[in-house]
C-alpha cells in the first residue's frame, strides 16, 4: 500500500509539472494584456511603469522562471484586473462553488439511488420505464439550456425563485454560506438543481445496472431464503454492493461538477470560481486563468488519488492488486 501511494504521488507531481508548463506557454499566446489594461490616455512613462510592475517586459523564459519559483511558494501571481493575489481571489470564490457542487451531488444521490434501485428491481414496470426515459432526457439535455429553462419556468413564468446571484450569506467559521438564510437558499435551489439533474441521471443509470446485476446473485437469493424482509435485503445486501461503482463515478464526477460549474455559474450569475474563470478569460487576466488551472489540476489529481484509495478500502480485491503492482 505504501509503495503504491508513493508511486501515485510521484505520478501526481509529474502531471502537475507537465500541466504547469503547458498552461503557462499555452496562455502566453492569448494576447497582449498590456493593450487591454493600460489606459489609452496614459503617457509612455506610465505605460512602461505598468509593464515593468506586471513583469511583462521580461523575456518569456524569465517570466516562466518567475512563475515556477512563485508556484513552489504557492504564489500564482497577481490579478491584473483585481490587483489581488490570484490564488487569494480564487480561494475567496471557492466556497460558493463548493456549496453549489455539494448540494447538487447531495440532491443527485438522495433522489438518484432510490429511483435507480426501483428501476433495477422492476425493470418491466411502467414507472421504471418512465424513470429511465427521464434519465435519458436528463442525460442528454445540455446543461446551460436546462439552466435557462429552469430560469424561464421558476423565475420568469412562475416568479417563485430568483433568476441569479447569490443572495444573503451567513458566515460560518469565517466562510460565507448561503443555505442558512431563506434568501440565500432560494438563490441556491435553481443552480443546485441544474447541477443535480445530470448527475442524478448518471446515478440512476449506474444504480439500475448495478441493482439488476446484484439482484440475481446467490447471496441475495440466500438472504431472501433466510426470510429477511425485502426492505432489509434491498436496503442492506443490494445497496452495499452497488455502492462501489456509484462511489467511484461520483468521486470522479465531483471534479466534473466543479468544471461544469463554469456553465451553471455563468447561467445563474453565481459568484463562484467558474464565473471568475470566464470573466478572466474575457479580460485576458492571465494570472487568474493560470491560477485557476493549476488549482483545478491539483484538485483533479487529488480527487483521482482519493478515489483510488477509497476504492481500495471499499473493495478488498482492488487492494490486493494495488498492493502488488
Amino acid at each position, binding site marked *: 500500500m505504501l509503495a503504491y501511494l508513493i508511486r501515485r504521488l510521484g505520478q501526481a507531481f509529474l*502531471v502537475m509539472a507537465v500541466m504547469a508548463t503547458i498552461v503557462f506557454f499555452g*496562455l502566453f499566446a492569448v494576447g497582449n494584456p498590456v493593450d487591454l489594461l493600460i489606459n489609452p490616455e496614459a503617457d509612455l512613462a506610465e505605460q512602461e511603469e505598468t509593464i515593468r510592475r506586471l513583469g511583462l517586459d521580461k523575456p518569456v523564459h524569465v517570466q516562466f522562471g518567475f512563475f515556477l519559483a512563485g508556484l513552489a511558494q504557492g504564489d500564482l501571481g497577481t490579478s491584473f484586473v483585481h490587483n489581488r493575489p490570484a490564488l487569494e481571489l480564487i480561494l475567496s470564490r471557492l466556497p460558493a462553488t463548493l456549496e453549489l457542487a455539494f448540494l447538487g451531488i447531495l440532491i443527485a444521490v438522495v433522489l438518484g439511488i432510490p429511483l435507480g434501485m426501483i428501476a433495477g428491481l422492476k425493470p418491466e414496470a411502467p414507472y421504471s420505464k418512465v424513470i429511465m426515459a427521464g434519465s*435519458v432526457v436528463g442525460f442528454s439535455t445540455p446543461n446551460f439550456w436546462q439552466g*435557462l429553462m429552469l*430560469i424561464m419556468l421558476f423565475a420568469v413564468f412562475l416568479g417563485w425563485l430568483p433568476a441569479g446571484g447569490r443572495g444573503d450569506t451567513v458566515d460560518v467559521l469565517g466562510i460565507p454560506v448561503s443555505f442558512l438564510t431563506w434568501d440565500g437558499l432560494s438563490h441556491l435551489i435553481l443552480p443546485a438543481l441544474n447541477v443535480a439533474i445530470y448527475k442524478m441521471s448518471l446515478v440512476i443509470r449506474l444504480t439500475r445496472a448495478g441493482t439488476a446485476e446484484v439482484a440475481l446473485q446467490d447471496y441475495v437469493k440466500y438472504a431472501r431464503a433466510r426470510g429477511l424482509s425485502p426492505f432489509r435485503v434491498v436496503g442492506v445486501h443490494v445497496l452495499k454492493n452497488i455502492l462501489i461503482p456509484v462511489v467511484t463515478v461520483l468521486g470522479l464526477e465531483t471534479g466534473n461538477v466543479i468544471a461544469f460549474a463554469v456553465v451553471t455559474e455563468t447561467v445563474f450569475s453565481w459568484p463562484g470560481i467558474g464565473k471568475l474563470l470566464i470573466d478572466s478569460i474575457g479580460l485576458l487576466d492571465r494570472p487568474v486563468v493560470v491560477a485557476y488551472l493549476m488549482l483545478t489540476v491539483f484538485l483533479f489529481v487529488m480527487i483521482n488519488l482519493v478515489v483510488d484509495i477509497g476504492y481500495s478500502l471499499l473493495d478488498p480485491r482492488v487492494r490486493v492488486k494495488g498492493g502488488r503492482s
Partner: protein
Amino acid sequence: MTADTPLRRFVVDFLASPLAVIAGLGLLAIALTALFAGIIAPQNPYDLAQIDIMDGSLTPGTEGFGGFTYWLGSDEQGRDMLSAMIYGLRISLMVSFVAVSSAVTVGMVLGLLAAARGGWVETLIMRIVDIQLSFPALLVALLLLASLGKGVDKVIIALILVQWAYFARTVRAAALVEIRKDYVTAARAAALPQWRILFGHVLPNVMPPVLVIATVQIANAIAIEASLSFLGVGVPITEPSLGLLIANGFDYLLSGRYWISFYPGVALLVTLVCINVVGDHVRDILNPRMQR
C-alpha cells in the same frame, strides 16, 4: 433464407427495437434537414435583403409585415427563428461530425501503434491518454479555445484534441486482443507488411467498439460545442450554431421572450436524445455479454 452475415444480423437486431428505429429515423431527418438547409429553410437568415427589422421579436406563429409567417417567432433583428435554427443545426452537426471523424482517425492510428509496438511507445501514448481523460473535456476545450481564440476551425481542433484519447484507448484495448488471434499469425506467416496487417486485417475487427464510442462522442461533441459557444469562446457570431442562438436568446429570456432560446434548445435536445438512444441500442447489440 439468405446467408446470415454479421451486418444482416445487426440490421435485424436494430429493427427489433421500435424506440431505436424512431430515434434512427429522427436522426436521419435531422441530418437531411441540416444537409439541405438552403432548400428547406423558409428564409436565408444571413441574407440581409430577406430579413426585415420591422418584424423583430415576433411571437411564434405571427405573420410579419411582408406576409411571412414566423412559425417559431423571430429574434431582435427580425430573423426567422426556424430558419436560423436549421442553419444553426447545420453548423453544430458539421463541427461535431468533422471533429469526431478526425478524432477517430487520430485515435485509431495512435491506438494501433500503441498495441502493435508496445514498449515505450505504448507507455507514452497510454500515459497521455490516462492523464487527458482524467480532466473533463469541456474544461480542456474551454482552455484550449481561451488560448486559440474563436472560430469554427479552432472549435474543431479543440474537439479533436479532447476526443482522440477515447478512441486511442478503445482501439488499443481491442487491438491487443485481435493481434493474438490466429488470422494475424497467418497474415504474418504470409509475410504481409505490418501496416497491411494492422490496417487491413486488425482494423476492421476493432471497428464495432469504435463505432459505439463514436456515436456517443458525436452527441458529446455537439453538447460541448454548444456549451463553448454559449460561454462565448466557440463559433463566431457570423456562423451561429444552436448553442450561440441559445446564448443570444438568453438576454431576452428575462423579459419573457422565451422562444429565441427555447426552440433552438429543443432542437439540440431532440438531436442529442436521438443520438443517445441509437447509441445505447447499438451498444447493446454489439456487446457480446448481452447477446441473446
